[in-house]
């Protein structure tokens, strides 16, 4: 008879067999047996966070930048409820996380015991699946299955709730088994006919566009390589969602910039006027589509997605292709090479008018802003940060708000997995802990959190984690003393009633940095900005960079909600030229 292991040992054996190197966690009563076992497993390093939400976001940052699943370990009750925001965030953005939570002993479940909560009940709607382990014999099977569910198909978070008595009990450990698809769930469900149909549509189109999303990133780095080949082989323009940034080089001429609510004029107009839209791994989110009834009215729509439930959820499409982005693009490229080896050249003529039109839209220069010599414009700060970090293979995380959109607009990515931002859930406080996770995965790389002062205060305590593990993350705060995006909406839509969007008391971020044991740097005017950024980059320790920016700056362009793509608000330069008067004003 083979050796028996305790539940806690089984947890670690599973993690070892799943090649887990890091766990992000926080101990507590109901997970103590697991923490006790930690010392016997040297290949697994535990990162002690300061709040369980931070553990979750750090694991997300780790997962998104490395392509490996993130592992979180928390205790019962408040430990589990604190991680719910991060699980929901991971669920919305399709990030593979495995959260292991402690639970009160089985005989106390349901008695309102100390630090008891219905963890599987609470996390059911924000995980792909969750398990409450009631029998030690099921433990290894469940944890292996948890890894499989989290990482296959459309990735997402899972949770395994382990009562404390189960952690002590003994059972035989079983290794992961490669099994057939779970309950017959298949990930690739397309055939050559679909690909042929796609190519038929492509050769007919005179105003085509690729609309790509986070699915390309999730499909692995190979998908981004293939996407570049596909764009080259077709000569079509390409735009990307917030989550897809980096899958295609941001400075390439075929790239129209980000689309959506704060997307470029050319990307949104091209989406509106195109006759063929090829959605690759994006999900027609409401921040992308604007008013559904008027969304790209004249186009044939193709939707490539691994998740069948994404098809026709928000927008009806003409050709759904269900499969892994990488496999679909690869088949498409093969077919093009075989059937139409000269597609891009022969097609050039046909889509040349389209490119001319796009060029006209580009001339609007919709990302332009009025720069200043007195105050630092936030867009300018991001642009300088980009110029000074270009070529350093930088990893960028963000919080949520104006700074996030400015980062997406002005920081240009040329590789996948370099851009970590909370898009679906829009979690303020995501960026700092995410940067911790990214730096853990890439200890030698430059990791910067482009932050807002309001967001970053939500998870500021994780600076302490960064200091503990010598993680030289850079927190680049665009400090305008406002919840900027809230202030912007209030200015444009609520008669400038700035209700509770100004933070009247903020910490001195430089002193705060020093209190945490890291370095604080402040930039107050455009003249010193470059020097200060260089000082930050030359500091091999965690830095909080307090960049004092224009307090009234708004993020443009912008599609007001409920408007179609071709009715954008442009920045102040354009507004001056085309003064909004009378009827136009009521639109705002």
């Amino acid at each position, binding site marked *: 008879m083979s050796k028996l292991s305790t539940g806690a040992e089984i947890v670690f054996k599973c993690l070892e067999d799943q090649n887990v190197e890091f766990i992000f966690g926080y101990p507590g009563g109901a997970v103590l047996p697991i923490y006790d076992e930690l010392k016997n497993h040297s290949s697994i390093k535990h990162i002690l966070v300061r709040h369980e939400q931070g553990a979750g976001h750090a694991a997300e940052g780790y997962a998104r930048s490395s392509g490996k699943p993130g592992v979180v370990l928390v205790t019962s009750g408040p430990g589990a409820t604190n991680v719910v925001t991060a699980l929901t965030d991971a669920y919305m953005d399709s990030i593979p996380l495995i959260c292991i939570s402690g639970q009160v002993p089985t005989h106390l479940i349901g008695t309102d015991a100390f630090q008891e909560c219905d963890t599987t009940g609470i996390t059911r*709607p924000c995980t792909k699946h969750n398990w409450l382990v009631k029998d030690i014999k099921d433990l290894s099977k469940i944890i292996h299955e948890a890894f499989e569910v989290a990482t296959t198909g459309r990735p997402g978070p899972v949770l395994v709730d382990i009562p404390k008595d189960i952690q002590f009990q003994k059972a035989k450990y079983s290794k992961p088994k490669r099994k057939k698809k*779970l309950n017959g769930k298949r990930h690739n469900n397309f055939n050559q006919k679909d690909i042929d149909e796609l190519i038929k549509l492509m050769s007919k189109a005179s105003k085509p566009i690729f609309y790509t999303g986070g699915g390309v990133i999730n499909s692995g780095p190979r998908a981004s390589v293939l996407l570049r080949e596909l764009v080259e082989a077709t000569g079509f323009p390409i735009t990307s969602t917030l989550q897809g940034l980096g899958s295609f080089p941001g400075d390439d001429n075929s790239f129209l910039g980000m689309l959506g609510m704060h997307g470029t004029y050319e990307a949104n107009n091209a989406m509106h006027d195109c006759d063929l839209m090829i959605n690759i791994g994006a999900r027609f989110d409401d921040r992308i*589509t604007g008013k559904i009834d008027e969304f790209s009215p004249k186009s044939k729509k193709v939707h490539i997605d691994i998740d069948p439930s994404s098809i026709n*959820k928000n927008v*009806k499409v003409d050709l759904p292709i269900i499969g892994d982005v990488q496999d679909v693009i690869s088949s498409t490229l093969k077919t093009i090479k075989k059937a139409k080896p000269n597609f891009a050249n022969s097609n050039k003529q046909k889509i040349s008018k389209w490119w001319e039109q796009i060029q006209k839209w580009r001339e609007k220069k919709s990302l332009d802003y009025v720069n200043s010599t007195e105050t630092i414009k936030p867009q300018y700060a991001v642009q300088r940060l980009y110029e000074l970090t270009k070529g350093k293979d930088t990893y960028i995380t963000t919080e949520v708000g104006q700074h996030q959109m400015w980062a997406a607009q002005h920081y240009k990515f040329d590789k996948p997995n370099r851009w970590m931002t909370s898009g679906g859930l829009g979690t303020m406080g995501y960026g700092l802990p995410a940067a911790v996770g990214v730096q853990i995965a890439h200890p030698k790389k430059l990791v910067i959190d482009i932050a807002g002062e309001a967001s970053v205060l939500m998870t500021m305590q994780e600076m302490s984690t960064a200091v503990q593990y010598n993680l030289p993350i850079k927190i680049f705060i665009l400090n305008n003393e406002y919840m900027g995006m809230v202030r912007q909406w209030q200015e444009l839509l609520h008669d400038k009633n700035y209700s509770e969007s100004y933070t009247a008391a903020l910490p001195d971020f430089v002193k705060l940095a020093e209190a945490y044991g890291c370095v604080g740097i402040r930039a107050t005017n455009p003249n010193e900005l470059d020097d200060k950024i260089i000082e930050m980059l030359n500091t091999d320790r965690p830095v909080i960079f307090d960049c004092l920016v224009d307090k009234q700056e708004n993020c443009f362009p912008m599609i*007001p*909600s*409920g408007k179609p793509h071709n009715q954008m608000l442009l920045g102040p330069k354009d507004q001056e030229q085309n003064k909004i008067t009378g009827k136009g004003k009521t639109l705002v």
Partner: protein
Amino acid sequence: MSKSAYSTPGKKGKFDKHIIVVWVDNEAGVLARVVGLFSGRGYNIESLAVAEVDAKLNISRITIVTTGTPQVIEQIKLQLRKLVPVHKVADFKREDKNVIFKEMALFKLVGNISKRKKAFNACKKYNAVLLDKTNKSYVVQVTALRREIDIMSKNLKKLGLVSVSRTGAVAMTRGAEIFK
């Protein structure tokens, strides 16, 4: 324009009634997953019936009567298929002649014997079974369509109906074929 950060609702399609049948692993929390999916995404549940149908394979069969636009019904099926314990999902239109739908109801009738007899006779066309009788009461079981039971429970009020208990609809296709 709307002063909302969110878009305004678009056009609504026509609502159809569908019967969704879901085969699931019979494990803890599986019903909560299915029902939570419906409530969380704002889908309708008109009735629900669930029980284990295969003790060896540990499979339960859930029958849900729902209404929605064709797009919503499609989403319901696709979302259900994503749940880990779900094996297969069938969808029948309420009007489908190839499918049998049945509900069961228990009626408790209290009153004098002639009233009760009259009530029982009225139930007869719905496979009435007299399950319990005392000198004051009957408990009658009927199996019928939802709207037939609706009508019966209304009509029997004056004949001494004091309590109604009814199941959700269950469904099965006609003929030798089974749903794969």
